């Protein structure tokens, strides 16, 4: 396989539920070996998009390619090379943890038993426990073991850590980094949709923010943190400032908070000419960028 060919390629994807446009002309590309974040508010179209990748839904228009294949016509070929952890995990209640893993393994050509043993130990899951007796956190852990042991080329995670306690969330992410990413780096791609952006911050190479079924912003994480800055300034007396290029300006008495979109140097220079008592500039985290995306949308319009 050509290593430059994208793992996921979505072009102009649209999917409607009745009159509602869940996804409306979305395009994005995920390259091999990357961890790609897919951020959006509830109802923005994240899960619909993911379901189109897995052929759980059919697109109304546009194209979806996974490993260069069409999930509608090459469903088995696509699914045999990826693993999916949804936000709501369900197992057959009568099966034990051991039965469930054997059942999942029976669908796979390859199953890494060492990883399975390691993770069962790490998560302290009892193989004899019935799936129906597992907590939500344990069910997610079991699903993660089931997703990682086949060592798939693509790991699709849809809100994997929502509703879990902080320790389980932390372990989940460490497992994705450790057990999953430690294999051949060119064949370990992660596509993760999440609200809990700060927890995945260090993992994410590139991301797309989706809003009402459309792409709002696609950037590399390092570049985004370089471009979006928060500047705070305090003056002895509030001067008249020309901050036309700022994404947003908040004032409180003699203090200012400004969001800069790639023009922090210019804004800092303007502030500095008025001799601020205090001047600070810091990067926005990915979560703050996501929260600011409302402002961004207005700026774009």
């Amino acid at each position, binding site marked *: 396989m050509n290593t430059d060919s994208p793992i996921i390629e979505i072009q102009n994807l649209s999917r409607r539920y009745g009159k509602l446009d869940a996804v409306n002309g979305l395009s994005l590309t995920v390259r091999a070996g990357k961890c790609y974040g897919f951020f959006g508010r509830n109802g923005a179209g994240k899960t619909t998009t993911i379901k189109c990748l897995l052929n759980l839904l059919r697109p109304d228009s546009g194209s979806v390619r996974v490993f260069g294949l069409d999930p509608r016509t090459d469903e088995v070929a696509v699914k045999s090379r990826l693993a999916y952890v949804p936000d709501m995990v369900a197992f057959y209640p009568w099966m034990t943890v051991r039965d469930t893993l054997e059942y999942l393994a029976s669908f796979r050509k390859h199953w890494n038993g060492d990883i399975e043993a390691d993770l069962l130990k790490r998560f302290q899951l009892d193989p004899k426990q019935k799936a129906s007796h597992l907590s939500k956190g344990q069910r997610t852990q079991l699903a993660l073991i089931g997703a990682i042991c086949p060592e798939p080329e693509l790991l699709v995670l849809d809100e994997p850590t929502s509703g879990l306690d902080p320790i389980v969330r932390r372990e989940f*992410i460490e497992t994705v*980094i450790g057990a999953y990413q430690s294999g051949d*780096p060119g064949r370990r791609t992660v596509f993760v949709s999440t609200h809990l952006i700060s927890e995945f911050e*260090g993992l994410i190479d590139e991301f797309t923010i989706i809003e009402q079924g459309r792409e709002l912003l696609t950037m590399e994480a390092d570049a985004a943190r*370089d471009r979006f800055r928060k500047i705070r300034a305090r003056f002895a007396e509030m001067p008249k400032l020309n901050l036309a290029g700022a994404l947003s300006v908040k004032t409180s008495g003699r203090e200012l908070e400004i969001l800069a979109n790639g023009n922090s140097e210019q804004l800092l220079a303007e502030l500095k000419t008025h001799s601020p008592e205090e001047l600070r500039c810091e*990067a926005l985290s990915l979560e703050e960028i996501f929260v600011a995306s409302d402002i961004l949308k207005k700026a774009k319009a």
Partner: protein
Amino acid sequence: MLLQIDFKSGKPVYLQLVDQIRYAAASGGLRTGEPLPSIRPLAEELRVNRNTVAKAYAELENQGVIETIPGKGCFLKESNSPFTKSARAKILTKEIDEAVVAAHHLQVDRDAFLALVKERLDSFERKVKEKSDND
């Protein structure tokens, strides 16, 4: 050597790792021949992408700060700097410029800035001395 990532700094994550390891190497936090943490446990601990740590180590190896011994891991190289004097000056100039710009924005004047640089140099030398006394 304990490493820490600050997403608020706006500096690419791999460069933060490079800088901190170089600092640890220069200040005695990491000694010649001492192993660096392996990529996987370090990535897990910092909860950053494994590729980010690998990229930082590749950069450090490029700069001649560390060497990889196959099957054993990464180690800090002999401290004789591989850089020529002008190359060292060039690297340092970039970092000093950043501090100068920050000082300018914070309205720290020339004398105060130079005084601070002297103080930091003294503090650094004290630390290095303490380390070597303890050995």
